[in-house]
């Protein structure tokens, strides 16, 4: 079932962020959201994730769905290891499965270190992997590959595509290449 957004409006004080925004998002496909900074991309994602309510408008097709997300910030539990951070949201995943998924994306030395001791790039990769290994129907990606070097970005983005195939994905990005590699079926532009 498609997700239908009808005339969504959201304002902070006098500043309108979303004005009568409507879209139809097909199920099981990637939808990219592209717009200059400050145009309401993150606000739209926060509304879809249920973290904010629109001032007006209607959303259908989200009820009963399981969500997963990569936020702009990593939002990891600093004192837990990458494995534990992933198991926190994906308890059904076996430790061995998580470690297998981390190989090639993270250095083996980091698997059991508290994430606060990892570099920014490593932490980002843990946040992405956590979202991909969770049990979800809809995946929200808010500039997930930002801050990764080119080589890592290529590895991580292909891994993300592979692991999210057949799932509904919202991808906020400034880079058309990312939308292309993720095989976005449509690009929503906010005005």
């Amino acid at each position, binding site marked *: 079932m498609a997700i239908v957004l009808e005339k969504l409006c959201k304002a902070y004080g006098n500043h309108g962020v979303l004005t009568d925004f409507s879209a139809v998002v097909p199920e099981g496909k990637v939808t990219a959201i592209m717009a200059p900074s400050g145009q309401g991309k993150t606000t739209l994602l926060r509304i879809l994730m249920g*973290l904010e309510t629109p001032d007006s408008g209607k959303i259908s097709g989200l009820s009963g769905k399981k969500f997963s997300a990569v936020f702009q910030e990593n*939002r990891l539990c600093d004192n837990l290891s990458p494995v534990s951070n992933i198991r926190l949201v994906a308890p059904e995943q076996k430790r061995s499965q998580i470690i297998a998924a981390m190989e090639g994306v993270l250095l083996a030395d980091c698997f059991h270190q508290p994430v606060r001791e990892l570099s920014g790039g490593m932490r980002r990769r843990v946040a992405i992997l956590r979202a991909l290994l969770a049990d979800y129907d809809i995946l929200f990606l808010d500039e997930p590959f930002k801050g990764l070097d080119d080589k890592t970005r290529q590895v991580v983005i292909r891994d993300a595509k592979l692991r999210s195939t057949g799932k509904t994905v919202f991808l906020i990005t400034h880079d058309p290449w990312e939308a292309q590699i993720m095989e976005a079926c449509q690009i929503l532009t906010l005005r």
Partner: protein
Amino acid sequence: MLWLLVWQLGSQALGQEILLVSPVSVLVRLSSLIRTFPFWESIGFSLARISLGFLLAAFWGTLFAALAARFAGFQDLLTPLILAIKATPVASFIILALIWIPSRNLSVFISFLMVFPVMYSNVLGGIQTTSRELLEMAQVFALPAGRTIRYIYISQILPFFRSACTIGLGLCWKSGIAAEVIGIPDGSIGEKLYNAKIFLNTPDLFAWTLVIVMVSLCFEKLVLRILDTCVRYLERM
């Protein structure tokens, strides 16, 4: 070592043990006290009551902080009470409480009363500064309440709780012993201090003070170690 030497020299210079007893005399008195049953009985008496007061304060302080964080009205109700407890001299509470509570259990109540506001304020501060970003993450991933409390709230509140324990452990001994000195329950450390004062027995006064400091330090180390073990267990995934 330097301060022990200063103490010894000061005592020798004064030449009157009643004014300033020497560390050697204190150690001699302590070694003779250690061999008596009432010595251990007094430590057991005070330790049991003061620890109970501390544990009750830790439990109720944490519970009330959780309720205050959840219900603003409850916090408004408690704030003046907490401020009043913090501002009132402990001696006033001890004298007042002696009217209501048997002196044997006075130290439980006084330790509780002194530690409760510290626990409450610190834990409430911890809850209020819990990362909103992590709570949103928990909401999006639909983490069950138990996992959210265990892995997000507890780890964020823990530094505040630990610091409250460190302050509270010192406070509970100071206030608990003060309550015993005023209430003079039979067989308590406070009673021994009181007797030392009455009979101007300075070696006893110093020896018991040393005992209080040591028991308090050991108790603090034990509680913090138990706390760290519990945290390691809780953070296991």
